[in-house]
Structure formats: C-alpha cells, structure tokens
C-alpha cells in the first residue's frame, strides 16, 4: 500500500468521522427539541407553592397592571370569557368578594380569554363587575399559567407563590373567601 493511498484513506476516515459526528449531533438536537416540546405540552396544571408567572394586564380602561409590582399583596387572577357558560356562576360572587377585600390590599384581576371586547364589556356590565379586567393579549397568560379552559382562578400569595387555584367555577362565595383567607394568612 503506498503512502498516497494511506493518506487518502486517513482523509476519508477523518471526513467520515466528522459526518458521523454532525449526524449524531443533529439527531440528538432534534430528539432534545421533541422532548422539550413534549415536556412543555404535558406539564399539567400549576402546582400550589410554584412561583406565579408575572404578567402585564392591559385593562379595558386603558391602564396597565404589572403583577411584579404587586409583591406583598394577595392577587386573585380570574380567567374568564363572555361565551363561557360556567363563568357566569361565579361572576357575582367574585364581585362580592372584591367588595369585601378591596380595602384589605387584595388585588382582583380579571383576564378575558379568546373573547371580543364588545361582548366582554357587555358581560362585565351585566354582572356588575368593577374590578380591573383586560384581555389576555396573544394568549400569553393562558399559556404561562398552563390553563386548559375557562374559568380558572389563581390566588397568589404576598410572596409571589401560588397559594391556591380553582379549575372551573367556584361553587359559592364562601369558597372564594376561604381561599383568600389562606393566602392572607400565609
């Protein structure tokens, strides 16, 4: 075997080595992406004690509320829609709870998901809701809070951790009060 042949073979095996390396890197990269996507999709609902994602709510009144500036206060985040048939069961109770706790530093935020502004405003007026409400622009809050449907309510403690959550409508005003009291005591 000549030196030239040996050099050619070495060069070929070197190129093949790089090719194999790149192919494996691609395969591992794609698998990692798929795994990440699957994990994200199947993370399930938020857990109590988990840090609640911060968000900025652009209210229907034109204000902006940044939840990161509300640290130290209890925040109730209710995600709803005007077309949601079960949201109406808790609408008036939420307003009553707001009237009870508005002077105790509890912030109520309504997040309107996949709705039209006209219908949302009609809904708010119909149920006499006066706390801050705004649309979930781009569906970001829905995604960050891993929501699967409306209504869902999240109560965030003064430490910014999730104190309690309600999937579906609250059955009564007492349920809302109990959840807020737990957050206030924490």
């Amino acid at each position: 075997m000549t030196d030239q042949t040996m050099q050619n073979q070495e060069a070929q095996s070197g190129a093949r080595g790089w090719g194999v390396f790149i192919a494996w890197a691609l395969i591992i990269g794609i698998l990692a992406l798929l795994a990440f996507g699957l994990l994200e999709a199947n993370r399930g609902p938020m857990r109590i004690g988990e840090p609640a994602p911060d968000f900025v709510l652009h209210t229907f009144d034109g204000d902006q509320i940044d939840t990161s500036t509300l640290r130290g206060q209890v925040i109730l985040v209710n995600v709803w829609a005007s077309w949601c048939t079960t949201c109406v069961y808790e609408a008036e109770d939420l307003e009553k709870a707001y009237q009870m706790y508005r002077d105790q530093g509890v912030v109520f935020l309504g997040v309107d998901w996949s709705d039209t502004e006209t219908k949302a405003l009609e809904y708010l007026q119909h149920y006499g809701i006066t706390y801050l409400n705004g649309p979930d622009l781009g569906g970001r809050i829905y995604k960050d809070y891993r929501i699967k449907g409306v209504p869902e309510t999240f109560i965030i403690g003064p430490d910014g951790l999730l104190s309690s959550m309600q999937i579906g409508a609250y059955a009564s005003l007492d349920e809302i009060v109990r959840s807020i009291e737990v957050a206030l005591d924490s």
Partner: protein
Amino acid sequence: MRKRIQAGVSVFFILMMLHATLTVRAQEEQPTDDEVNAIAKKLYCPVCENTPLDVCGTQACIDWRTEIRLKLSAGWSEDQIIQYFVDQHGAQVLPEPPAEGFNLLVYILPLVIFLAGILVLVQALRTWRKPVEEESTTAQEVGDPYMSRMEEELRKRQEDV
C-alpha cells in the same frame, strides 16, 4: 293654504326618498356572509382545536365572526383583521405558524433531516461497495506465490477456452 300643503307634501316625499336611498346604501355597505367567511376560514377556533372559524358553531366563534363583520364594515382589510386576531389571541389562531423566530425550525428541520438522510444513504452505499474493491486489490498486492500461480493458471485456461 294650498301652497303650504303642497310644500309640506313635497318635503315629506323628499325626506322619504332620502331615507330610502340611505337605507339602500347602508345595506350595500354591510359585508356579506361570504366575505366574512372568506376571512373566517383563515382563522381557527380558540376553543375547539383544528376547527376553522367559518364552520365552528361555538359561541366564541360566532362572536369572532361578528367581530370580523364589524371590522369589515369599518373598512378594515383582510390582512389587518387577521393581524388583529393574531395580536389579540396569539399565532395559534392561524392555520400554520408564522415563519419567524423559533417557528422557523418547523420549516427548516424537515429539509435538514432530508439532506442528512441523503448524506447517510450516500455514505452507506460507499461503505457497501468498498470491501469488494479492497478484497480484489488485497489479493493482488499480497504477493502470495501460490495464489499468483493459481491466478496465472486460471487466466491461461480461460484464454485457451
């Protein structure tokens, strides 16, 4: 007196004609269902997955179609309306993700995988062919006297035949 009655009747008819003209114009400006559905079919229901807005019967979709109608009446273009829904509800309302940012992977990865597949196939074909070539060259280059004589004899016999 008669003149006043005539003037009153004339004013009444003029007002009636004006009203009729305005009504017809208002009806003409209303977008048709087809116009609404042409945009609605390019958007997807937020509640039922994989259902285009034009065929979805949920209240959310009915409200969205009403919103499209209102925007069309206000003179918005199709692109403006679609962009409005994307801004309000996110890119998931579109039938396919926009080719930007992380979403670019959706469009690039299949091509990369296809090219990688071709590369692997070419490499595999080369590997399958190589041992045959190597065996024949090795036999000649080994220089075994017994094998050389054997090959020489075989060649001669083939020539004789």
